[in-house]
């Protein structure tokens, strides 16, 4: 194929002139040649790489030549006849053969050659592979045999079967027929060492066909992890690390399978799964034997049950772990939640009740009814903490606290009402301290009370020793009431404040009832109670108070903030001690001043609608002022800053440097410079083919061409530079159109200009 044929075909495909295509072709190969001259390597993708290298000729001189190395795909396309053939190993060199082998066969110096039957494709199977030949006739043998091998390999695939020579045929007979006495022929298996080497050398045999080898590797991987040993350690710690260990094993195994690219993946994966399951079963048995605490064992026992062999393992582990992490974090971050404290408090109450029952049984046989009532209710209270644990995860804490508190209070009220039937008598007398109670003042007052109580304790203890058991009865019966007051009195009193809208209505109504009943019931001083409880082995009230202070939530703190302005009010309430008997009275007292304030506000509000109109008016005023400001600014700007064109001074534009003087730089475009600012008058001296020579004070200039586009101009400039001329250009604006004129010069004489014009 020649160049013309290429040009014709492309011109016909693209509907282009042949001349242009030929120009294009010349451009391609000229640029390539120019690159080779500069010792540049040219890399054309999907075709190949041209590289310039030095080589020595036959004469011995060094000369540069161009080499071409095709892309792999292109080379494979070219070599489609012999692409399937691969290089074959014929024989080992002498150094590879073991010295023992020489000594066994013959003491003499001989050449030993390994022949291989290629007809059976026997590299893979070792039994038929090797026939050893021992001959006395020396160095000619290997050459002939290699030729013979060529035929046997290449005949089935190559198109050109070479006709075997007569010598080789004779040679065949000599070798293969054992009857001839000239050559001592024997067949024997190669020793195992050489066999192993052969296996390593041939690439095809490196791939393991056996599953057993892979099995062994997998077992190595599993052993390297030391799964059982680790898990024996982890059983004490928990289920989390057990899972992480199992995860690592499965990950290693999967990575191994991917890297090795086993042919039979399914069998391997099944085996690995079986092994892991066996290990897990082994571990679970050990866990049961060791008697790990009841909270952790069920999780560990669940894991083998959940894992179905068909499903992927890692996902299961991650899901389980995530759940565990959530639960653990909740326990760690909030070690003492309100619910736990509730549960503790309820346990304390139960213990007290039991003690009370025992005491009552021993001393008052008539009051068996109390025991019957408290019996079933203890069971109810035992069930409730479990319900709290389940419900906490779903609900927010504050609301849960409010709801559950209401229930607990109702239950406690039930106790109080049953017990209080005997006791609820007499008028209501509330001490002044409890009436004006706020949370902060209450705490301060309590601290003072505790100090007084401690002083009183010492006195009371001394009295109790004298009075024996009798005061314990009264204290024991009154305990639940006092407990209720000390434990739940505070939140009940804090929730008096009507501002707290966060509290739900259900709890609110319950607490209302409780508070009303509290006010109706008599209060017994607490000084006598505390020592008795210490004697019974229970926690003192001071500890319970501390517990309860931790029991506060954020909502309580907010309430305290809201109550601060109301602290000034309690002294007024203390004066009106007689009137307060219900919850409504307190609320009315607190709200009394606020209603006044609200009334004042409501009086002021009717005046506000007049002001409500003002914003619209204000907006309009602001807009108008802004408009005026803008207009003033514009007027001032026009007067002072942006002077009229008549007043503007004509600033002389600096004359740009001549582009013709620049040398070396490729593309010089003075797009920014305003060349048209100053133009000298020029006279045309000479004209030829739209090319003009003009004379100025500086010298002679050649001008030619009109280019609308700068890129076309740049192309032309480069073409001229290849000829050795460095042109400049001039920007011309006329009738709203800008175009560029090529400009050469300045030249001192007209002759110079004409010489250069002839070259263009």
């Amino acid at each position, binding site marked *: 194929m020649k160049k013309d044929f290429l040009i014709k075909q*492309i011109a016909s495909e693209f509907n282009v002139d042949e001349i242009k295509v030929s120009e294009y072709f010349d451009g391609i190969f000229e640029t390539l040649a120019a690159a080779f001259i500069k010792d540049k390597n*040219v890399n054309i993708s999907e075709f190949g790489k041209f590289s310039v290298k030095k080589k020595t000729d036959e004469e011995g001189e060094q000369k*540069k030549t*161009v080499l071409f190395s095709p892309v792999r795909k292109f080379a494979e396309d070219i070599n489609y006849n*012999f692409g399937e053939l691969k290089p074959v190993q*014929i024989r080992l060199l002498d150094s590879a053969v073991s010295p023992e082998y020489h000594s066994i066969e013959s003491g003499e110096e001989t050449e030993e050659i390994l022949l291989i039957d290629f007809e059976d494709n026997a590299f893979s199977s070792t039994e038929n592979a090797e026939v050893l030949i021992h001959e006395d006739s020396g160095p000619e043998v290997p050459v002939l045999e290699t030729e013979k091998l060529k035929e046997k390999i290449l005949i089935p695939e190559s198109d050109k079967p070479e006709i075997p020579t007569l010598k080789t045929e004779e040679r065949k007979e000599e070798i293969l027929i054992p009857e001839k006495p000239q050559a001592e022929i024997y067949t024997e298996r190669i020793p195992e060492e050489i066999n192993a080497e052969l296996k390593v050398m041939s690439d095809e045999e490196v791939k393991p066909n056996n599953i057993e080898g892979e099995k062994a590797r997998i077992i190595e991987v599993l052993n390297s992890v030391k799964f059982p040993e680790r898990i024996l350690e982890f059983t004490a710690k928990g289920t989390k690390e057990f899972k992480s260990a199992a995860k690592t094993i499965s990950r290693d195994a999967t990575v191994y399978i991917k890297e090795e690219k086993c042919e039979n993946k399914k069998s391997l994966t099944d085996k690995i799964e079986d092994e892991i399951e066996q290990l897990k079963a082994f571990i679970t048995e050990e866990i049961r034997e060791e008697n790990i605490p009841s909270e952790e064992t069920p999780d560990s026992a669940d894991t083998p049950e959940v894992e179905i062999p068909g499903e992927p393992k890692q996902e299961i582990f991650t899901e389980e772990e995530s759940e565990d992490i959530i639960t653990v974090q909740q326990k760690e971050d909030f070690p003492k939640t309100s619910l736990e404290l509730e549960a503790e408090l309820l346990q304390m109450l139960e213990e007290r009740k039991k003690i009370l029952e025992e005491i009552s049984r021993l001393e008052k046989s008539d009051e068996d009814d109390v025991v019957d009532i408290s019996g079933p209710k203890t069971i109810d209270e035992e069930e409730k903490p479990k319900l709290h644990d389940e419900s906490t995860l779903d609900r927010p804490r504050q609301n849960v606290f409010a709801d559950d508190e209401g229930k607990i209070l109702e239950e406690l009220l039930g106790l109080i009402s049953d017990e209080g039937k005997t006791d609820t008598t007499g008028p209501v007398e509330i001490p002044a301290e409890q009436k004006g109670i706020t949370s902060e003042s209450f705490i301060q007052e309590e601290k003072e009370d505790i100090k007084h109580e401690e002083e009183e304790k010492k006195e009371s203890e001394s009295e109790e020793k004298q009075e024996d058991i009798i005061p314990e009865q009264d204290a024991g019966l009154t305990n639940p009431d006092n407990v209720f007051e000390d434990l739940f009195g505070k939140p009940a009193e804090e929730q008096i404040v009507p501002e707290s809208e966060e509290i739900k209505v259900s709890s609110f109504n319950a607490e209302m009832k409780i508070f009303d009943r509290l006010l109706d019931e008599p209060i017994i001083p607490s000084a006598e109670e505390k020592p008795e409880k210490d004697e019974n082995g229970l926690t003192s009230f001071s500890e319970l108070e501390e517990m309860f202070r931790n029991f506060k939530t954020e909502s309580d703190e907010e309430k305290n903030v809201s109550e601060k302005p109301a602290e000034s009010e309690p002294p007024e309430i203390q004066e009106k001690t007689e009137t307060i008997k219900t919850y409504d009275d307190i609320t009315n007292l607190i709200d009394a001043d606020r209603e006044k304030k609200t009334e004042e506000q409501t009086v002021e509000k009717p005046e506000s609608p007049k002001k409500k109109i003002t914003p619209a008016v204000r907006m309009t005023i602001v807009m108008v002022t802004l408009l005026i400001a803008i207009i003033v600014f514009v007027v001032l700007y026009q007067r002072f800053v942006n002077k009229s064109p008549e007043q503007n001074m004509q600033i002389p534009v600096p004359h740009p440097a001549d582009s013709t003087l620049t040398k070396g730089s490729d593309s010089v475009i003075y797009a920014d410079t305003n060349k048209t600012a100053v133009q000298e008058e020029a006279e045309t001296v000479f004209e030829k083919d739209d090319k003009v020579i003009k004379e100025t004070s500086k010298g002679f200039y050649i001008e030619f061409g009109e280019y609308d586009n700068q890129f076309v101009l740049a192309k032309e400039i480069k*073409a001229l530079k290849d000829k050795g001329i460095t042109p400049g250009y001039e920007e011309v604006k006329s009738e709203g159109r800008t175009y560029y004129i090529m400009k050469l010069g300045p030249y001192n004489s007209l002759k110079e200009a004409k010489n250069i014009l002839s070259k263009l």
Partner: protein
Amino acid sequence: MNKKSLINKVYIKSPFGKEDSINIFNRTIELLKESITEGKKVKIKGFGKFTIERREAKTVTDYKRKAEVLLPPKDKITFKPSKKLVKRINEDE
């Protein structure tokens, strides 16, 4: 030099637009490849000649494996630069 830069350099001198010049360039290379793989000799005046040569099968000693290896035959592409081009390359020195 890269294929992209080569196309740009050719485009500056060419009479075609950029899209046409790229398409023509790619098409010429395709035609060259087709004609070479068919076994035709491609001769470009002033540049060189692409031919296919067949290397026959031969034995080679592989010293890493310590063995003799028989290589199958192979068809290879060879580029022989023209005398003009060799002259131009060696003139500048």
